């Protein structure tokens, strides 16, 4: 199947179609809405299902192999976040706050995107490494922490500079500033690692690992068989919310629109290649790429609004949800799948690299 065919067949799955339907419903100003309680519950459910599934897989396959991909993902995520910042600040001329906020939004991961990725692979009949759910959990706060740390550094440097030039004598003021920054940082750190997404995901991974296939049997119908149906319902709401934001894309501007498409493509393809080099399976490489390509639009505002309140939330929510998310699930997933298929077929050279890498570690 060539890439366009794959995009088309992906486009015609219920998950994507109901997302597009949601967008249309919002555009024609329908009063259709998934009640808040349901749309708040669904991500919890999806993450629990992802976690359980990942945990069970890890029990089956061991998690010795998890370490390297995890570390590589963290490094890439940090590198990419810094890279985003440079692009946004230099090329995009965005404010320091907006730049850091957007940089970490795109450095972070999207749990909904991950769910759609899993259902995409299911549809293709391809499996992926279970431990990627753990990578998802660990990756979530990494980019935020870096961005928040750097923002706070930048802000306290600004304050310090101001203080030094104006009130030369007031040294304790700076210390207070530092102190406050540190307090705030540790507070935000706590907030982001006790955020519901990470907590339910990690908890479910552990539980999945403990109960294994046999313990899962009694809840399989709810946490496995109903998974795709639940995504479909959630995608209606995602479509509606994205559709409501479509007008805001004008405010986002050409630069950011381009950023929201090009950067995920770059990150995602690099991700696929690196994952393949590390020996991940065809599907695993796609999911690894998706982790790096995805932007966070549910966890991001919750953390960033406190951490970098000066940044304009409609910039990062709109670009992540209104542009990158549809692009990722409709176009980039099939593209990465094709890339992954391609590089997994020229196994020889890759495996070589893999062995080299393994020797090296």
């Amino acid at each position, binding site marked *: 199947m060539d890439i366009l065919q794959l995009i088309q067949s992906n486009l015609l799955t219920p998950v994507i179609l109901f997302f597009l339907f949601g967008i249309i419903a919002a555009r024609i100003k329908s009063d259709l809405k998934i009640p*808040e309680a349901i749309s*708040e519950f669904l991500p919890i459910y999806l993450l629990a299902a992802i976690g359980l599934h990942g945990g069970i897989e890890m029990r089956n396959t061991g998690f010795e192999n998890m370490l390297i991909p995890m570390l590589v993902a963290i490094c890439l995520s940090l590198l990419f976040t810094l890279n985003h910042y440079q692009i946004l600040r230099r090329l995009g001329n965005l404010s320091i706050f907006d730049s850091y906020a957007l940089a970490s939004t795109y450095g972070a991961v999207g749990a909904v995107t991950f769910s759609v990725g899993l259902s995409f692979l299911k549809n293709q009949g391809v499996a992926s490494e279970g431990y990627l759910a753990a990578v998802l959990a660990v990756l979530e706060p990494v980019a935020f922490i870096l961005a928040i740390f750097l923002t706070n550094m930048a802000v306290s440097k600004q304050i310090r500079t101001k203080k030094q030039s104006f009130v030369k004598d007031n040294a304790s003021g700076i210390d207070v500033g530092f102190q406050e920054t540190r307090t705030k940082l540790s507070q935000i750190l706590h907030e982001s690692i006790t955020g519901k997404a990470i907590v339910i995901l990690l908890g479910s991974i552990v539980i999945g690992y403990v109960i294994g296939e046999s313990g899962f049997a009694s809840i399989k119908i709810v946490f496995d068989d109903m998974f795709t149906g639940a995504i479909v319902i959630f995608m209606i709401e995602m479509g*509606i*919310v994205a559709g*409501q*934001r479509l007008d805001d894309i004008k405010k986002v501007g050409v630069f950011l629109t381009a950023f929201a498409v090009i950067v995920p493509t770059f990150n995602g393809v690099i991700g696929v290649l690196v994952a393949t080099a590390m020996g991940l399976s065809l599907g695993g490489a796609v999911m690894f790429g998706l982790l790096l390509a995805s932007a966070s639009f*549910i966890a991001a*505002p*919750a953390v960033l*609004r*406190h951490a970098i*309140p*000066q940044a304009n939330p409609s910039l990062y*929510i709109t670009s992540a949800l209104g542009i990158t998310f549809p692009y990722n699930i409709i176009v980039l997933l099939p593209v990465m799948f094709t890339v992954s298929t391609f590089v997994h077929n020229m196994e020889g050279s890759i495996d070589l690299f893999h062995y080299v890498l393994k020797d090296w570690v």
Partner: protein
Amino acid sequence: MKLYAVKLLTVTCEILAQKDVIEILKKHGITGYTTYEVDGNGARGIRGQGFKNEKNVKIEIIMREDKLQDVVEEISRTLFADFATVLYVSDVSVVRAEKF
């Protein structure tokens, strides 16, 4: 039943700023308040569609007049610039003035 005059401060703001407001209250020794989620429209556009984090919250605080100025001042200073916020003060009477 004698009623005593106190102040009611009402803050309508982004749900994500709720924590900050309550932090400020605590700093001024106020622990009593009532909160509930609301929708709204204002300078920052319609709020309440979409994600829950994009809703507003109303925070109502009955307090004695002497703390009012400081609290209002701090909320205005720290939140008005970055968050969708509206606040207003009204006169109310209560039975147990010592409670507030």
